[in-house]
C-alpha cells in the first residue's frame, strides 16, 4: 500500500488536532495533568511518524496538493483549505513534529511540579500549537497560512502567559501578541491586495500567474512589503523584534519550541515559500536583506550584555533569524531555509539545555549558576554542542548553513550587510561562549543550589531521563547534520568566494578566543572591555531604547488617544445628544409658562390663533 506524502502530511496535521480537541472537550481528562500530557505526546509522536513517512516518500520535485472548499462564493470557492506537500514543507514538517515531540516529552520532566489542571492546559496548548504550526507549514495558500499563522501566534500568547500570575509573564504575553499582530495586519493587507491582483490565495495558482507574466509588477512592491511585515513581526526582525526576549517569560520548553525552533521561523518559511513572488520586487528584497543583517548585528550586540541565559538565547535567536532573512533578501532562499532547519535543531537543543540548567539551579542568571560543568555533566556536553553549532564551528550543525548564508549575501552583492553579518558571527561566538564560560566553567556560586522545582537541597544533578533523552537526541542530530553536510554538499545556487570558509571559521574562533580570554583566563578584563565599548554597552543595556519607544507609543500615543476619544465620546458626542434632550425639557418648561392661569390670557391665545389663521390662509404661495 502506498500512501502519498500529501495524505501522510495531512495525517500528521490532524493527529495533534485530534489530541487538542480531545483535551479541549474532555474536561476531566485535561484536569488530570500527566495523562493529558501523554495524550498530547501520543499525538505528536504519531505526527512525527507520519511526517517522517511523508518526508521519506517525498521526491525533490514532487508535489501533492489536497484542497477542500472553505469559504464559498457564487463563482466557485473563494478560499480553500488543504495540504501542499513538497520537499520544503515535508522537511519542515519533520522538524516541527520532531521538536514538538521532544519538547513535549521534555516538559513532562520540566513541569512536573505544576498543578495538574495547569499541566493539562499546557499540553492542550502544546497540541494546538503542533497542529497550528503544521498548518502553517503545509498551507497551500496565503489564506490558510494566515489562519494558522494567527493560531501559532495565539499559542505563543497562551504559552508565554502560562504562568500568568506572574505580572511579567502576563505582560510579555500580550506584548508578544500585540507586536506580532501589528505585523500580521501588514500580512493581512498584503494577502488582500495580492488576492485582488491574482484572484486567488493559492501559491501554485499565483506561481503560475507569475511564470506566465500575468501578474502585474507595477505596485507589487507594496504587496510584498506588506507580506514581509507579517514575517517581520513573527520572525522578530528589527524593529518588531522587541517581543521575543520578553517572551522568555514562558516556560523554557515553550521558548525552545516556539520562540526558537518553529514559530519564529515562520516568517522565514513564508519567504521561502513565496520567494518567486518577492523576486519580482528586488527593492523589497534588498530591504529585507538589509534589515535582516542589521537585526543580526543588533541582536548579537544585545546578547552580549545579557545576564539571563534565556535572554542571551533569545537575542541569539533574533540574530540568527536576521541571518536567515538576509539570505532571503539576497534572493537565495534555499540557504536561509537550510539555516532555518539546522538552527531549529541546535537552538532547541540550546534552550532545552539551558532549561535543564535552570531546572536544576532555579535561576536564569548566568552569574548565579557557575561551575555547572561538574554538577551537570550531561547538560554541559549538550549545551556546548549546541553552542559550537551556533558559533559555526565545522563539523557542527550550524557551520555549513551559516557559511551558505554568508556566501549568499556576498553573492547577492549586499556588501554592507555581509560585513555586518560577519561581525555578528564573531559576536555570536563570543556571547555564546561567554555563557558557557560563566555558567558552566566558572566558579561554582555559593547561592546556586536548588531551584523552585524541588530538586535542590544542596546538591545539583542532571535532569531526569524524560528531559535528558530529548537533549541527547538533539545533540546527536546537531552533530549528525554537521557531519552530513561535510559529506553531502548540496548544489549551491551561487558560487562563494574561496576565502569565505576561512573567514567564517576565523571569526567564530576569534569570538571563542576572546570569550575565553575574558571570562575564563581572565587575561582581558571584562570591565576594560565594557569600558571600551561603554556607549554601545549602555545603549545595549537599555535595549537601544526600542522597548521604551514601543512602551511610549502604547501608553502615550495609543492609550492617550483612546482616553481622548473616550472623553470626546462621552462628553461631546453624547453631550450633544444630552443637549438636545435637555433643550427639549427646557422648552417644555418655557412653553408651559404661557399657560399663565389668567383667563384673559387664554382669550389672547384664541385671538392670536385666529390671527395666525387669518394671516396663514392668505399667505402668498
Amino acid at each position: 500500500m502506498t500512501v502519498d506524502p500529501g495524505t501522510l502530511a495531512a495525517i500528521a496535521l490532524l493527529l495533534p488536532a485530534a489530541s487538542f480537541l480531545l483535551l479541549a472537550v474532555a474536561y476531566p481528562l485535561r484536569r488530570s495533568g500527566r495523562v493529558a500530557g501523554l495524550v498530547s505526546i501520543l499525538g505528536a509522536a504519531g505526527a512525527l511518524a507520519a511526517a517522517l513517512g511523508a518526508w521519506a516518500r517525498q521526491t525533490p520535485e514532487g508535489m501533492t496538493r489536497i484542497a477542500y472548499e472553505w469559504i464559498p462564493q457564487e463563482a466557485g470557492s473563494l478560499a480553500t483549505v488543504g495540504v501542499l506537500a513538497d520537499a520544503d514543507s515535508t522537511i519542515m514538517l519533520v522538524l516541527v513534529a520532531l521538536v514538538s515531540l521532544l519538547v513535549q516529552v521534555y516538559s513532562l520532566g520540566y513541569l512536573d511540579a505544576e498543578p495538574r489542571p495547569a499541566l493539562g492546559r499546557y499540553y492542550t496548548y502544546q497540541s494546538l500549537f503542533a497542529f497550528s504550526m503544521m498548518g502553517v507549514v503545509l498551507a497551500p495558500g496565503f489564506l490558510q497560512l494566515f489562519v494558522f499563522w494567527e493560531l501559532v501566534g495565539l499559542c505563543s500568547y497562551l504559552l508565554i502567559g502560562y504562568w500568568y500570575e506572574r505580572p511579567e509573564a502576563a505582560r510579555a504575553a500580550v506584548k508578544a501578541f500585540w507586536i506580532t499582530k501589528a505585523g500580521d495586519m501588514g500580512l493581512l493587507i498584503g494577502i488582500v491586495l495580492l488576492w485582488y491582483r491574482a484572484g486567488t490565495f493559492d501559491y501554485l495558482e499565483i506561481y503560475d500567474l507569475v511564470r506566465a507574466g500575468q501578474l502585474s509588477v507595477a505596485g507589487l512592491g507594496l504587496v510584498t512589503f506588506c507580506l514581509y511585515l507579517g514575517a517581520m513581526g513573527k520572525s522578530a526582525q528589527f524593529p518588531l523584534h522587541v517581543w521575543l526576549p520578553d517572551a522568555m517569560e514562558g516556560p523554557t520548553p515553550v521558548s525552545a519550541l516556539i520562540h526558537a525552533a518553529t514559530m519564529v521561523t515562520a516568517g522565514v518559511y513564508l519567504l521561502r515559500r513565496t520567494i518567486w513572488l518577492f523576486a519580482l520586487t528586488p527593492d523589497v528584497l534588498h530591504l529585507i536583506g538589509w534589515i535582516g543583517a542589521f537585526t543580526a548585528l543588533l541582536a548579537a550586540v544585545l546578547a552580549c550584555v545579557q545576564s539571563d541565559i534565556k535572554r542571551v538565547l533569545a537575542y541569539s535567536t533574533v540574530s540568527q533569524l536576521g541571518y536567515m532573512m538576509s539570505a532571503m533578501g539576497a534572493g537565495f532562499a534555499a540557504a536561509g531555509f537550510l539555516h532555518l532547519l539546522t538552527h531549529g535543531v541546535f537552538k532547541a537543543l540550546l534552550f532545552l539545555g539551558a532549561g535543564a540548567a535552570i531546572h536544576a539551579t532555579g535561576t536564569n542568571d548566568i552569574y548565579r549558576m557557575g561551575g555547572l560543568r561538574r554538577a551537570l555533566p550531561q547538560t554541559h556536553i549538550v549545551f556546548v554542542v549546541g553552542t559550537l553549532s551556533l558559533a559555526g564551528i565545522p563539523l557542527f550543525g550550524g557551520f555549513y548553513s551559516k557559511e551558505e548564508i554568508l556566501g549568499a549575501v556576498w553573492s547577492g552583492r549586499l556588501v554592507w550587510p555581509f560585513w555586518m553579518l560577519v561581525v555578528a558571527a564573531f559576536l555570536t561566538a563570543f556571547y555564546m561562549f561567554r555563557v558557557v564560560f560563566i555558567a558552566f566553567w566558572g566558579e561554582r556560586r555559593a547561592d546556586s543550589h536548588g531551584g523552585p522545582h524541588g530538586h535542590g537541597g544542596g546538591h545539583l544533578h542532571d535532569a531526569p531521563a524524560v528531559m535528558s533523552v530529548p537533549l541527547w537526541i538533539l545533540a546527536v542530530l546537531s552533530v549528525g547534520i554537521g557531519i552530513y553536510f561535510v559529506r553531502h554538499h548540496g548544489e549551491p545556487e551561487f558560487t562563494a568566494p574561496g576565502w569565505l570558509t576561512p573567514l567564517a571559521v576565523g571569526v567564530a574562533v576569534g569570538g571563542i578566543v576572546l570569550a575565553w580570554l575574558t571570562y575564563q583566563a581572565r587575561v582581558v578584563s571584562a570591565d576594560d572591555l565594557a569600558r571600551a565599548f561603554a556607549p554601545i554597552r549602555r545603549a545595549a543595556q537599555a535595549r537601544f531604547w526600542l522597548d521604551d519607544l514601543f512602551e511610549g507609543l502604547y501608553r502615550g500615543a495609543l492609550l492617550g488617544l483612546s482616553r481622548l476619544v473616550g472623553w470626546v465620546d462621552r462628553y461631546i458626542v453624547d453631550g450633544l445628544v444630552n443637549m438636545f434632550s435637555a433643550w427639549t425639557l427646557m422648552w417644555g418648561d418655557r412653553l408651559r409658562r404661557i399657560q399663565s392661569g389668567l383667563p384673559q390670557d387664554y382669550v389672547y391665545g384664541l385671538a392670536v390663533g385666529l390671527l395666525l389663521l387669518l394671516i396663514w390662509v392668505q399667505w402668498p404661495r
Partner: protein
Amino acid sequence: MSTMPLLSIITWMPFIGAVLIIFGARHNPFLVRLISVVTTGISLVLSLRIYWLYDQQAAGYQFYEELPLVPPLGITYQLGVDGMSLLMVLLTSIIIFAGVWASWTVKERSQEFYALLLILVTGVYGVFVSLDLFVLFLFYEIAVLPMYLLIGIWGSSGEVRPQGIFAWAFRRTGVGTKEYAAMKLTLYLLFGSAFILVGILALYVSADSSSFSLLELEQVRFAPWLQSWVFLAFYVGFGILAGIWPLHTWSPDGHASAPTAVSMLHAGVLMKLGAYGVVRLGMGLLPDGTHQWMWLVGTIACINIVYGALSAMAQTDLKYVIAYSSVSHMGVVMLGAATLTESGLNGSVFQMFAHGIMTGLFFALVGLVYEKAHSREIFRMGGFGKMMPGIATAFTIGGLSSLGLPATAGFVAEFLTFLGAWQSRFSWWLFPGVIGAFFTSIYVLRVTKQIFWGPPAADPHFHGLPDAQGPEWAALVILVFTLVLFGVAPGLAIDPVDTATVPLLTRLGVMP
C-alpha cells in the same frame, strides 16, 4: 416542504410563552424558567429545522406565509425567509436560548422579566421574517419598547461625572442612572423608527401598488430623488439601531445598564436588526440611493470601527468595553455592506451573525463575572483565571473572535469584509478596518489580561469566587460552540447567505 407555518410558530412561540408566564406562572419562578426554556427551545429547534430545510438551490424567500390584515391598505401578514434572514433567525434563536439560561439567576420579579424578554424576542423574530414593511415596522417597535422596563427595572446604574461644555445638559438629564439609560435607549431607537416610518410610507405611496410587500416593492424602480432621501431616512433610522457614529451613544449606556440577557439580546441581535434593515430595505429596495450614499455609509463605518475601538480602550467598566466593542464591530458590518461586493456583503452578514454570538457570549460572561464578583471595574479585578477557568476560557475565546482570530467566526467575517473593502470604489476603507482589528486586539487582551490571565487582585473581596455553574454553563457552551463551529466551517453560514446577497447585488447592478 412542511405545511406547518414554521415561521409563525418560531415567531410567536416566545409570545405564547410570555402569555403563559403572565397568566399561568404566578409566584412560581421555576415554572417561569421552564416555560421560557421550552418556548425558546421550540423556536431554536424549529429555526434549525428551517435552516435544514431551506432549499439553497431554489434560493429566494421560502416558508412563505400570508394572511391579509388590512386589505384596503395592502397590509398583509406576510412571512418568508431568504438566506440572510434565515441566518438571523438562527442567531436570534441561539442568543435567546442562551440568554434564558444565562439569566437563570434573576430573582427579583422574574415573572415579569421573562415575560417582557420573550415579548421582545417575538418582535425580533418578526422583523427578520416579515416580508411586509408595515408588519416589519410593527415588530420593530415591539422589539424596542420592552427594553425600557427591562433596563429600568432589572438594570444597574453607574456613575458619570458631568463635565465638559455640556455638563449642564448632563445634570439635567440625570446621566448614569439605569432609568436614564433605559429612557435614552428607548427614545433614541424610537426616534430612529420615525425616520423608518416616513421612509416606508414614502415608498408605499410612491410605488402606487397599494402594497407594503417587500416582494412587490422590489419590482418597483423608484425615482432617483425619492431613493436618495428615503435611503438616507432608512440609513439614519436603522443606523441608529445599528449604532452608527455619531448616533451610537445610546448603546454604551444602554448595554452597560441592561441586565445580562437583555444586553445579550440587544447587542447580539437588535443591533443586527438595524444593519439588516439597511441591507434589506435600504439596499434591497433603493439601488440608486444605495449607490449614491455608499460613500457615506462606508466612511462612517470606518469611523465606527476605529472610534469604537479607541473608545473601548478608554473604558474602565467592563460592560462599557464590550458595548463600545459592539460599536466598533457594527462598523465592520456596515463597512461590509457598503463595499457592494459579494465578499463584502457576505462578510457583513456573517459579521452580523458572528458578532451576535460573540457579543452575546461577552455579555453573558460579564453578567456572570458581575454576579460572582459584584464588580465591573476592570482595574480592581484580577487573576480570575484561576478561580473561574471556565468563564475565563470562554471570555478569551470570545475576545479572540472579537479581534478576528482565525478559527473563530469573527475572522471570516472581518476577512471577507476586508476583501470587499479593497475591491470597492473606496479601497482605502481597508486600512481603518485593519487598524480597528489591531486596536481590538489591544483592548481585548488588555482586559483579558487584567481580569483573567494576570496577577490576582489585591482586594480580598475577589478571592475564592466560584466558576460558572449549572444552567450558566449551558449558555456558555452553546455560544462558544457556535462561535468556533462557524469559524471553522464558515460555509455553513455563507452558503445560504450567498443565495441572498448575489440576487441583491445583481439588483444593484454590481453583479451580472
